[in-house]
């Protein structure tokens, strides 16, 4: 996994876009996302606490943020499997990145792979709020550490 760690946020997004390019229809795409959602034990059950919850109107998302050696470590979960799969992609892109990079990250891959409706603030799945919280945590850390 050495290569992944040295990939930039942009490179990781390009990689995901390439992966999605091989899918021929929406079903394959969603099957992949669903598989991602099933595979990933994204968050320690003990961390599924009220203060980590992001309430969408329909699906719930839990997000935990840690800082290790100046990098951000995210873990998250959702009760809806498609939401969880997309969280898996977001975490893959933003994990192990410096807060200042997370704060300014343009998550263009979501639109490129045709999932932009899932990140719409009106989508009621909690994902837009999750991304906002990821970025706000990054900004807060940067401010506290004078970056």
């Amino acid at each position, binding site marked *: 996994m050495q290569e992944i760690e040295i990939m930039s946020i942009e490179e990781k997004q390009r990689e995901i876009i390439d992966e999605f390019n091989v899918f021929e229809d*929406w*079903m394959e795409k*969603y*099957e992949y996302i*669903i598989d991602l959602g099933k595979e990933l034990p994204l968050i320690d059950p003990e961390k599924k606490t009220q203060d980590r919850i992001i309430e969408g*109107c*329909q*699906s719930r998302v839990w997000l935990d943020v840690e800082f290790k050696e100046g990098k951000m470590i995210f873990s998250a979960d959702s*009760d*809806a*499997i*498609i*939401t969880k799969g997309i969280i898996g992609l977001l975490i893959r892109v933003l994990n192990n990145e410096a807060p200042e990079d997370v704060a300014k990250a343009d998550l263009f891959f979501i639109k490129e792979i045709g999932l932009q409706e899932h990140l719409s603030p009106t989508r*009621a*799945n909690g994902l837009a709020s999750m991304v906002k919280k990821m970025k706000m945590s990054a900004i807060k850390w940067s401010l506290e550490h004078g970056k």
Partner: protein
Amino acid sequence: MNEGIKKSFNVREIREQFPALRQLIYGKSLIYFDNGATSQKPKSVLDAINTYYSHDNANIHRGVHFMSQRATTEYEQARRTIQEYINAEKSEEIIFTKGTTDGINLIASSYGDLLLPGDEIIITAMEHHSNIVPWQMLCSRRKLVLKVAPINQKGELIMEEFDKLLSDKTRLVSISHISNTLGTINPIKEIIAKAHKANAIVVVDGAQSIQHTPIDVKDLNCDFFVFSGHKVFGPTGIGILYGKEEILEKMPPYQGGGDMIEKVTFERTTYNELPFKFEAGTPHIAGGICLGKAFEFLKTLDMDAVQAYERELTEYAQDMLDTFEDLVLVGTAKKKTSVVSFNVDDIHPFDLGTLLDRQGIAVRTGHHCTQPLMDFYNIPGTVRASFAFYNTKEEIDVFIKAVEKSINMLK
């Protein structure tokens, strides 16, 4: 319009009149099964919206000029069309509102002023948030007591329990005619008779019934009947509150402003007569006129045939869904219509709804603004397919296949 022009029920012909039904979603023919949320509009209503703004637009009730007079005539004609449709005694009993929620809030706020600490209000466990929260707010403002009539697992009101809640303290009962989440048809005529015996008045939330069943407020003998225009093939932002004249007369105004006054001085203001007392400010004129057109459209249909057809659709969908293992129907009342709510095993409703959407099928997922009801069933939400008379069995067949495909993808 009169009985003579009613046509026999032909779904193909009806669909022709709803342009929004003819479109592709993700490259697939739209299947619109979210009629409980809002209905599509017939061409006559769409044309009327266009005609109003391109020809008749003027403020009403106050203008001396020709256009204002014309718009006023049309608006008041719409009121009479709706009055006749629901068989109200007088057009003064028909108040234009923003919708069901607005209507219930009007009653809670205005009639609520006539209630005294300790008075009791009864609602049921299957109510929409808009028939819960306004009463909670009123109860805390006027120190009243809110009682909730329970339901059984099928989603039917337990009448013996309702009877027990009725007492000489009960002043008001507010109940949905048809549940938006379960499709249960409540025995409102019986409830109204019982409540009246206890000297309580009854508010019927008709948001989910006006588009599916013939409504006769005189026959029901309800004190209030409220509904939204957009669910009955009319525009959004307009609705109706029917109230018995003698009760509306006793009630103080809801909002103050233009149109609702008779004479204003800084010392004292006297109020306009019904229905204008409850219609402060410039109303949704286009909405009112076009809601009238929606009812003119409905009058061309045989509502008994519509009812039978919708029941057939509901039963067919329910029977087909019942063939899936691990699928649980939520709401299996003996008397139900037009709504089929369900869950599949461990699958989150949101996931199922997302995959159905990708297949061009519009359903609602979530708690449907009935969180206490979801708590009763101990579920986060349901997938809800809700039908209108323009839906077909062929659409249900496609829907069933899509549900199957989605379940296979998610399992």
